């Protein structure tokens, strides 16, 4: 029973409550840094580190944090992890760090992270908080990767900097520019909603058929 719950807390962030496609949170990094798959992965990893770390800390200290100042405390905790992620990236991957630029420090302002602290980590056990953070950031990373892959494949004709097509490929310049981010995100959201609607309709049909059968 308990294991099933834990699995549920993890998987809801990946699909049913996906932070990007369902909650439409964290749009700023989503649109700004997804012009290549590498940038998307690094951004996703940094966000995962920050979210898991701060969810762990907030869940650990939830009984010590006074209600009146909780938001500012969450922000300080998140900012600490963002600083660690920022300097780590600068040391390990200076090139990607330069490309992501201001968007690494801006993870602080990612409403998905603050939202998870307020809505989940501060009310659940450490174990569930960490599982929830892992699920949410995996969902976030998947969404970033989906957007980044589409934009890199169409916009540069490559994936993870590996050319996919011949030299003759005509790049879709718009895809690596800001409008391409909006277009791709909109189309992905459209697709997600369409799949969800189809699934709901299908389940309803099955339920109706079962009622008739009985």
């Amino acid at each position: 029973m308990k294991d099933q719950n834990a699995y549920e807390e993890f998987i809801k962030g990946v699909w049913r409550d996906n932070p990007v496609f369902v909650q439409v949170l964290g749009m700023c990094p989503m649109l700004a840094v997804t012009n290549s798959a590498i940038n998307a992965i690094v951004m996703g990893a940094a966000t995962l580190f920050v979210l898991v770390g701060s969810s762990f800390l907030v869940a650990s200290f939830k009984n010590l944090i006074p209600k009146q100042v909780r938001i500012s405390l969450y922000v300080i905790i998140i900012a600490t992890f963002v600083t660690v992620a920022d300097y780590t990236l600068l040391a390990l991957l200076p090139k990607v760090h330069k490309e992501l630029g201001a968007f690494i420090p801006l993870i602080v302002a990612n409403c998905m992270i603050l939202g998870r602290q307020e809505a989940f980590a501060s009310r659940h056990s450490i174990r569930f908080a960490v599982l929830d953070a892992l699920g949410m950031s995996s969902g976030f990373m998947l969404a970033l990767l989906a957007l980044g892959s589409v934009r890199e494949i169409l916009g540069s004709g490559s994936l993870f900097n590996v050319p996919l097509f011949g030299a003759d490929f005509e790049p879709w310049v718009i895809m690596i520019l800001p409008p391409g981010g909006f277009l791709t995100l909109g189309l992905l959201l459209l697709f997600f909603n369409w799949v969800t609607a189809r699934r709901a309709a299908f389940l309803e049909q099955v339920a109706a058929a079962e009622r008739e059968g009985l």
Partner: protein
Amino acid sequence: MASKDPHLLLQSAPMLRQGLTTPQAMRDVLYALTPIVLAALWFFGLGALLLLLVSVAGAVLTEWVFTPPERRREALADNSAALTGLLLALTLPPALPLWMAFLGAVVAVGLGKVIWGGLGGNLFNPALVGRAFLLGTFPIAMTTWVSPVGPDGFFDLSSSLFALPFHAPAYDAVSSATPLGLMKFQQQGTDISRLLIGNTSGSLGETSGLLLVLGGLYLWLRRDLDWRIPAGIFAAAGLFSLILFLVDGSRFPNPFFTLFSGGLLLGAIYMATDPVTSPVTPRGAWIFGLGIGLLAVLIRMFGGFPEGMMYAILLMNAATPLIDRYTQPRVFGRKERSR
């Protein structure tokens, strides 16, 4: 669609009057475009025909695919998708690869119209949405112009037309700048007579000033377009460029050149007047037209692009709901305007 003069529409007794239907308005526009299409064939040869066909096919196919089966017949019967495809093709350079034209038509109808809920729901002119997408996506192919081949070279097909999908085109024809490009980058004018006839390089349907005006007159006589919009565009563009010309005649073209070059006529007569994306009120139509003329000249003279008509229309399209809101006529009997 019909005249926007309110007192012409007030009727009391039951009168038999065939109103202007959407399919009829679309047919009129298609008739008005016929000479322009023929001119495109005359100047740019068989390649123009292929581009037109591919673009229309792409637009109609997209409308068919994304419309629910029970509404397909009705949605296709009014020819609006075909008209969007045709208008898009008329704004494309003559040597554009066919696959790009197809993609542009898919975006024009898919993102420009269907996604907003079909005809009547779209905020932006669908054909220009397709063109804006193409210009942003393939900036080089969309600004590579070839000179008109004329009737002798009718069957000379540029190999760039047949570039495989997702492949870059290879140009064999000599590229040549449009009159606007010559003006912007080399300060070199073009004869007005050539601009009137259309024997210049440029998009398929924008070169022949005379035929465009003729089609516009036909639409005006048939009451298919609101004359205030093109009049506003011509007035603003003409006046603004006259002022600039008087200030510095060596740097800025004369107003006639401004009016008859590039896509100003095509845009003013056939695209800005789209009843879906232009204001409903007479005063709104004036504001809309004047805004487009001003923006187009502003972009042409001081922007990075040689031509600004497309962005001018799209920008004013975005302002249309606001214009409609602020120019609502006073309700009869009330003192204050009803908001």
